């Protein structure tokens, strides 16, 4: 249990909900995890997606559509700017034509502002060069004409409406895309979670005993969560980033290949820079993760051992050690933070450079009449938008790796070998409570036999006492009887039928379990007792509670039988928990009982209650008792003595005492040892 609490504490930090839709944040260069077999994992994850083919097609179409429509926006809006600029540029054009037509001295005077245009024209006419006069006159007329040019607002209006249409379409597509994706990705995640849960129900106990709860939990929560976020955001990001890169590139090329090439100079640079920064910061992020792990470890350890630290006066030493780790964490921490923080400004600098290039070269090209001013404006927007997909693409590899790594861990669970199928050979025998072990051998690991050629004949109503020091592996028998584990050799039969020939459900209906590790779930006391039998009536529940001496304390609780047990069932005492599990077993009323007599952390009075309840429970059944009380042991039909996981002796009390072996030794030290010390 304490182990479990620890896991809980570690888990308590909560599943990392990715960046979350609101997140963003400094996500660059989080430590990367490598998938074991990327291709296989990817393909398998993809198979989940292809189950939602229709949605997937919509998503792809929408993503492409949204991006394409979005991309046309700046270019079209640029045309509006060009329209706005037209009169002005026509005037400028005409004015410079006029100046070209003027002789140098008059042009200089005009530039100085000492004469007006009319005076300049007059001066040229006065000079008497007819050809030049005609040229100047025409230029002046053209200038007059240009000055009267107005902005064509009808045309601008049409363009603007078009742009609004484009953006509306793009936003709408984006909305549909996200809307569909929300349902699809969450359904996939739901399916995954359900699959894992269903799989867990089919796995043998061996799987659960072999790893911590935290480890299993993390696969269902953290790992599936990573997959979820990646599906929700990553997938659409990939599609739109790629479409955007291609789209923007095409748009830029259609405007001007010169500017495009010039602004492209920055492109490989920004790709290289972002990869380099990610790579570099990853090193520090990893270091940070390691130091943070050390720090958390130290904190957990020292807080858990607070009493000991105080008792042995180790406060200063512990603080010193903490400061040391803290300092190291600071050292890598700020570097990781800094490196991930400069990604943006560096990319920004590159994008600013390309911004300047676009302005300058665009300006020159506009003067040359090669492109329009609106194109420059559009270009500026494009080059600004360009860095975003680049950083995204640079990160996609990392995101994919960690997603596949997470998915792989989930798939690993799904691929675990399952328990053997249930089968029924012949008819289910009547439930009497007879149990027989014949030549049973068993070991948790290959080659490490803990039970060797065990024979045991238990008649209905017998009591089998299992004794031995703590940690002697007394649960092994429970594991075998309940068929949580399969025997390696020999057979165990219940009511004359081999366990293997009977469905597990049928077998387990015959057994009741009251173990020291009381398990109750977060629900009402009534539900917890009724767990013993489906469809039990209120009356039956109360009768069971009364027999278990639990009715009294339940009724003293403010909500009685409706009291909701909290997560750790800490709102009732451990002794009361045991009474509830006894009531649960009483209600189930099985012919065979597995009982652990141990009552720890229980006050003397409750202990008496529990003992009486247990005696009531044992009546009229076959009992396997993990025995702690002398009376139980002495009166048992058979005593199984266990040590270090093995059954080492077997017999009645008298037989074993006569044998003068481990049991006799144990018995003497336990109950009389004190007197001889």
């Amino acid at each position, binding site marked *: 249990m304490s182990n479990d609490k620890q896991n809980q504490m570690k888990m308590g930090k909560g*599943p990392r909900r990715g960046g979350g*839709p*609101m997140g963003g*944040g400094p996500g660059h260069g989080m430590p990367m995890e490598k998938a074991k077999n990327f291709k296989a994992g990817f393909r398998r994850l993809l198979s989940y997606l292809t189950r939602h083919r229709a949605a997937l097609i919509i998503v792809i179409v929408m993503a492409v559509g949204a991006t394409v429509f979005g991309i046309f*926006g700046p270019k079209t809006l640029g045309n509006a700017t060009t329209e706005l600029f037209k009169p002005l540029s026509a005037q*400028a054009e005409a004015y*410079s034509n006029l100046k070209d037509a003027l002789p140098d001295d008059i042009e200089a005077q005009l530039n100085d502002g000492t004469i007006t245009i009319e005076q300049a024209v007059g001066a040229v006419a006065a000079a008497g060069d007819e050809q030049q006069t005609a040229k100047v006159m025409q230029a002046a007329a053209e200038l007059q004409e240009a000055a009267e040019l107005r902005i064509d607002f009808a045309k*601008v*209006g049409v363009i603007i409406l078009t742009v*609004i249409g484009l953006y509306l379409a*793009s*936003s709408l597509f984006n909305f549909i895309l*996200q809307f569909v994706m*929300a*349902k699809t990705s*969450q359904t996939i*995640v*739901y399916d995954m*979670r359900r699959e894992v849960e269903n799989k*867990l129900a089919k796995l043998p106990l061996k799987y659960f005993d072999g790893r911590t709860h935290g480890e*299993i939990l993390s696969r269902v*929560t953290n790992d599936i969560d990573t997959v979820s976020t990646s599906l*929700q955001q990553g997938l659409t990001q990939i599609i739109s980033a790629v479409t955007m890169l291609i789209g923007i590139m095409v748009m830029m090329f259609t405007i001007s290949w010169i500017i495009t090439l010039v602004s492209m100079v920055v492109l490989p640079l920004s790709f290289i820079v972002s990869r380099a920064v990610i790579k570099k910061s990853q090193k520090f992020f990893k270091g940070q993760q390691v130091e*943070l792990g050390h720090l958390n470890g130290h*904190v957990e350890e*020292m*807080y*858990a051992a607070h*009493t*000991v630290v105080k008792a042995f006066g180790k406060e200063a030493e512990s*603080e010193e050690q*903490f400061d040391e780790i803290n300092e190291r*964490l*600071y050292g890598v*921490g*700020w570097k990781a933070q*800094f490196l991930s*923080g400069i990604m943006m400004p560096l990319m920004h*600098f590159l994008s600013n450079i390309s911004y*300047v290039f676009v*302005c*300058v070269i665009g*300006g020159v090209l506009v*003067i040359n009449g090669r492109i329009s001013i609106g194109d420059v404006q559009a270009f*500026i927007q494009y080059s600004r938008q360009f860095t975003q997909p680049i950083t995204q693409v640079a990160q996609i590899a990392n995101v994919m790796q960690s997603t596949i790594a997470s998915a792989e861990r989930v798939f690993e669970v799904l691929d675990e070998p399952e328990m053997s199928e249930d089968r029924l050979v012949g008819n289910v025998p009547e439930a009497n409570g007879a149990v027989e072990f014949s030549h049973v051998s068993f070991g948790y690991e290959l080659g490490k036999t803990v039970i060797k050629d065990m024979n045991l004949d238990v008649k209905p109503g017998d009591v089998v006492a299992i004794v031995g*020091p*703590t*940690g002697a592996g007394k649960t092994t028998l429970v594991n075998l009887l309940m068929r949580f584990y399969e025997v390696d050799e020999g057979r165990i039969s219940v009511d004359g039928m081999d366990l293997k020939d009977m469905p597990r459900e049928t077998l387990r209906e015959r057994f*009741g*379990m009251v173990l020291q590790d009381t398990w109750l779930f*977060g629900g009402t006391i009534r539900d917890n007792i009724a767990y013993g039998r489906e469809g039990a009536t209120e009356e039956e529940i109360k009768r069971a509670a009364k027999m278990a001496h639990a009715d009294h304390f339940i009724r003293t609780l403010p909500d009685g039988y409706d009291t909701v047990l909290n997560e750790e069932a800490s709102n009732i005492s451990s*002794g009361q928990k045991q009474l509830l599990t006894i009531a649960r077993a009483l209600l189930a009323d099985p012919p065979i009982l597995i009982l652990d007599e141990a009552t720890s952390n229980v*006050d*003397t009075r409750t202990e008496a209650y529990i003992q009486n309840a247990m005696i009531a429970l044992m009546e009229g059944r076959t009992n396997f008792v993990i025995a702690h009380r*002398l009376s139980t042991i*002495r009166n048992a039909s058979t005593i199984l003595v266990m040590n270090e996981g093995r059954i080492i002796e077997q017999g009645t009390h008298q037989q074993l005492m006569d044998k003068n072996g481990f049991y006799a030794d*144990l018995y003497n*030290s336990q109950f009389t040892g004190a*007197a001889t*010390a």
Partner: protein
Amino acid sequence: MTKLLRYIRPYKWPAILVVLLTAGQSISQLYLPDLMSDIVDKGVVGKDIGLIIETGLIMLGFSLVVSVCTVLARLFGAKVAAGFARDIRSDIFKSVTNYSMNEFDKIGTASLITRSTNDVTQIQNAMVMILSMLLMAPIMCVGGIIMAVRESTGLSWIIMAAVAVMSVFILIVAKNALPLFKSLQKKVDRVNLVLREGLTGIRVIRAFNKTKHEQKRFDEANKDLTNTSIKVYRWMAVMFPVIMMVLNLSTIAVIWFGGHRVDTGDVQVGQLMAFQQYVMQIMFAVIMATMMFVMLPRASASADRINEVLKMAPSITDKTKAAPEAPLHGHVEFRNVSFYYEGAKDPVLSNISFVSKPGQTTAVIGGTGSGKSTLIKLIPRFYDVTVGQVLVDGVDVRDYPQAELRKKIGFVPQKASLVSGTIADNLRFGSAEASEEDMNKALSIAQAEEFVTKEKGGVNAAVSQDGSNFSGGQKQRLSIARALVRKPEVYIFDDSFSALDFKTDAKLRRALASEVTQASVFIVAQRVSTVMNADNILVLDEGHLVGQGTHRELMQSCGTYREIVESQLSVEELA
């Protein structure tokens, strides 16, 4: 959050530098569109390529300034935030280390761990964000507005309108989506809970054939979570397209309404383009700012939790630094001791008196909640008595510096907590000067020699966190050896034999009795066989000392003791 700002003080100058650099960065950034408008309005219109190139170079210069400022701001910002977090973390740890049991119980171990680790990380992230974004947003926003108004006063209403629409919209989304986010977290917790219950109770579930029932429970939680996530993501599906739309519409508005001003000659086209870019920058600043308001409350909750830890002062402090002269050795006395937990109405211990002399073993027995553990925790002054006096070696424990008092005591706690390192490290925890010989002797008394020598490396074998690579019984024996290495004047065993089998228990006590002759020994136990041989047995019932004496005496005189014995031993053994 503001309460933690004093931790910024040591980093005042770098922090101010960050502010200045951020200002410099923002202003330079804001200047770029203005320069661009010069290129258009003067360079392009005037066909002045020289001017265009010249302006371009100036722009490059400003870009460089922007980047240098940002990189430096990030550099100092990262250092400030990391230093800030380091200092807070260190202070929390020191506070907690100096807590007495009272404060520790009040907040709880798990919560203290979260506060020292996770909450600090939250605060650090918030600080990074404040330094990099929160400062920039208002500067960009205000600066952007000033620059935009400079380009064209008549169009500034577009900014107002856009900002208003955007803020209102984000607020609406936040109001609807934030509660969903919270319930999302709850539903994730629920899925975890059901799953965890399924794992811890797997044997019971299978024994009762309830697998289907559990699957249904999980499926309900799973479905519930899925539905909420879909709702959350759908809000997001609305949010981003709308934000983009508002952004785009405002630039379109600039072109349309600005166009008319171009027509009347109030505005030039380049200025219009610059204005449009300013609108963009302002809007991004607004988005960033609102994002901050979503993120900051989370950090502020962490800050509150941290503050609670920092503010709480340890209830047990040293009166003096000097160790008092102790007239006796290996001597413990309780004089009319009563003890109440803070805020409790009823006493845990009432009016307890007894004396323990060197070489004596005092056992404490009683049911759960009878106050056994509390009683012995008063000796090392983990708690202070409410009434009466506890004397160690003839001096009130409150007159010792805590370190001096505890030097006299070898304490073996109920839960055998080991620290990661080697077995030797753990033993030296008891006494830093312990020699190899001392350690081997302690291990042999604690009945740990056998399994330690079996370990690879013997005493240098590794112990993992929480000693999880050893069994409960092994851990207890190591923690007993740790106390033995100390060679203290007072031994306290707080139910420290519970995980040992009876045989080892008996052997250990026998070895202990022959070794420890000059110290007082206290044993708290549940088993009668463990306490039967003590020189003095204290029987506690609901905080009262209902009997005191040897096994034989108590069997005669104390009903409660007899009751306990009878529940554990059969009648013929009682004699």
